[in-house]
């Protein structure tokens, strides 16, 4: 069963798993995890030690090596959510629905990281944690939209209800982000020109560090995505299995057979027993 999930179980995962995996790790994720850790070590070395401080921003520029990749990854996560939701609504593919859910969780995480690192960068650079800049405002709205999706996806309701309602929100996520972004852009630029942005010239090593940041955070994203996908998949399995077990128990009561806990795969045998 572990290898089956690792390859990505397309279509609706069903059936009993007596040998259900006890962890969401596999060889692939372990290799990925080690690579990510090594990458983070390298990124820290590059970002904190080897690269020079910026002429204008000083040491604050070092936050950029995490901030910019996080923002990009957050957008990729949102895109996955919309894609997964669309394919769930269209093809009824639970695999894609779970990818969308995992994508939204990670997008929310990285949006929060983007906001926090941005604020930490803003305090020494602008003197304040927050300005009503178009980019900041629309990122905050993005976080709220993602939290709304996650709130619906985690409702205590049956899987089809949760998944379908969340998928409608997920489908609208990217259009909403675009339209919110557009309106906030206009809002801040009709009255005052946006004055803030990275207008730093990057020298070779800084550019390389930023690139490393993209690779490392990208690896981290994939690692998280696989794990969160498997956790979500297992959660649905547990819910299904609980229901199957309950039905089996009721049936066993009805036929007077089977006294112990009934395993779903024994359902047919339990019914055939005298």
């Amino acid at each position, binding site marked *: 069963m572990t290898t089956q999930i690792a390859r990505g179980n397309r279509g609706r995962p069903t059936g009993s798993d007596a040998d259900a995996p006890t962890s969401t790790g596999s060889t692939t994720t372990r290799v990925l995890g080690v690579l990510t850790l090594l990458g983070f070590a390298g990124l820290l070395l590059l970002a904190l030690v080897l690269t020079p401080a910026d002429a204008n921003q000083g040491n604050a520029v070092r936050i950029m090596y995490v901030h910019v990749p996080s923002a990009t990854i957050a957008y990729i996560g949102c895109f996955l959510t919309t894609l997964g939701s669309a394919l769930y609504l269209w093809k009824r593919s639970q695999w894609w629905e779970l990818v969308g859910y995992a994508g939204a969780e990670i997008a929310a995480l990285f949006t929060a990281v983007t906001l926090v690192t941005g604020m930490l960068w803003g305090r020494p650079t602008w003197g304040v944690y927050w300005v009503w800049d178009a980019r900041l405002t629309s990122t905050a709205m993005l976080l709220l939209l993602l939290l709304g999706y996650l709130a619906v996806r985690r409702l205590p309701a049956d899987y089809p*209800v949760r998944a379908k309602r969340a998928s*409608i*929100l997920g489908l*609208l996520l990217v259009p909403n982000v675009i*339209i919110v972004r557009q309106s*906030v852009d*206009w809002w801040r630029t009709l009255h005052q020109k946006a004055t803030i942005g990275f207008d730093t010239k990057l020298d070779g090593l800084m550019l390389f560090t930023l690139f490393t940041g993209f690779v490392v955070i990208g690896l981290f994203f994939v690692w998280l995505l696989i794990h969160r996908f498997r956790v979500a998949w297992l959660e649905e399995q547990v819910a299904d299995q609980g229901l199957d077990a309950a039905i089996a128990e009721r049936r066993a009561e009805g036929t007077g057979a089977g006294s112990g806990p009934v395993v779903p795969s024994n359902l047919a045998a339990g019914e055939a027993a005298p």
Partner: protein
Amino acid sequence: MIRDALLVAGKDLRLEVRSRVALNQVVPFALLVLVLFAFALDPDRGLLEKATPGLYWVAVLFSGMLALQRSFAVEAADGNRDALRLSGLDPAGIFLGKFLAVAVQLLVLEVLLLVGVAVLYTTHLSGWSLLVTTVLVATAGIAATGTLYGVVAAGLRVRETLLPLLLLPVLAPVLIGSTRAFEAALAGTPSEGWPWVGLMGVFAVLYVVAGVLGFGPLMEEE
């Protein structure tokens, strides 16, 4: 579809006319919000008049939220959701009907609030063509998103807390757009307001289409 929409809208509006919940609770709440803004921002400093567009639309959103909750609460009782599904009405028609009923209630609310700010905040209303268009387009946007997200939250125990969380971030462009358009109209520079009306128009069309297409699948779940 249109006939079904009119049937549903007629039913909802008749319900509101007879129960008078909107009149007895939502309208007083809207006026209360205006008074609360006056308490929060000292009326003597002229802030209220200056901030009228923003305060007005925030009041519309908050009291509109109540009207929306109400529009889906009436379907929650006695398995009405199933009854609607079994009625054979076109889901797109049901969506449009709910949308129309909410829009009509919002319009009434907005007219009353407009009178409210004119009287209580001594705001001089001007630029009528822009004001009226803004009200119509923004109402369409709020009613369409509200109806779509309302059904997403409907029938759940957490719907009262869930709907504002889902809806208000999505409505941010409408709040920004309607506020800017109102500011432009009141400042006598309507040309600055029309692009916002365009943005809200795109928003409203997007959500009406999304609602017409998405309502069927949302109603059909078991």
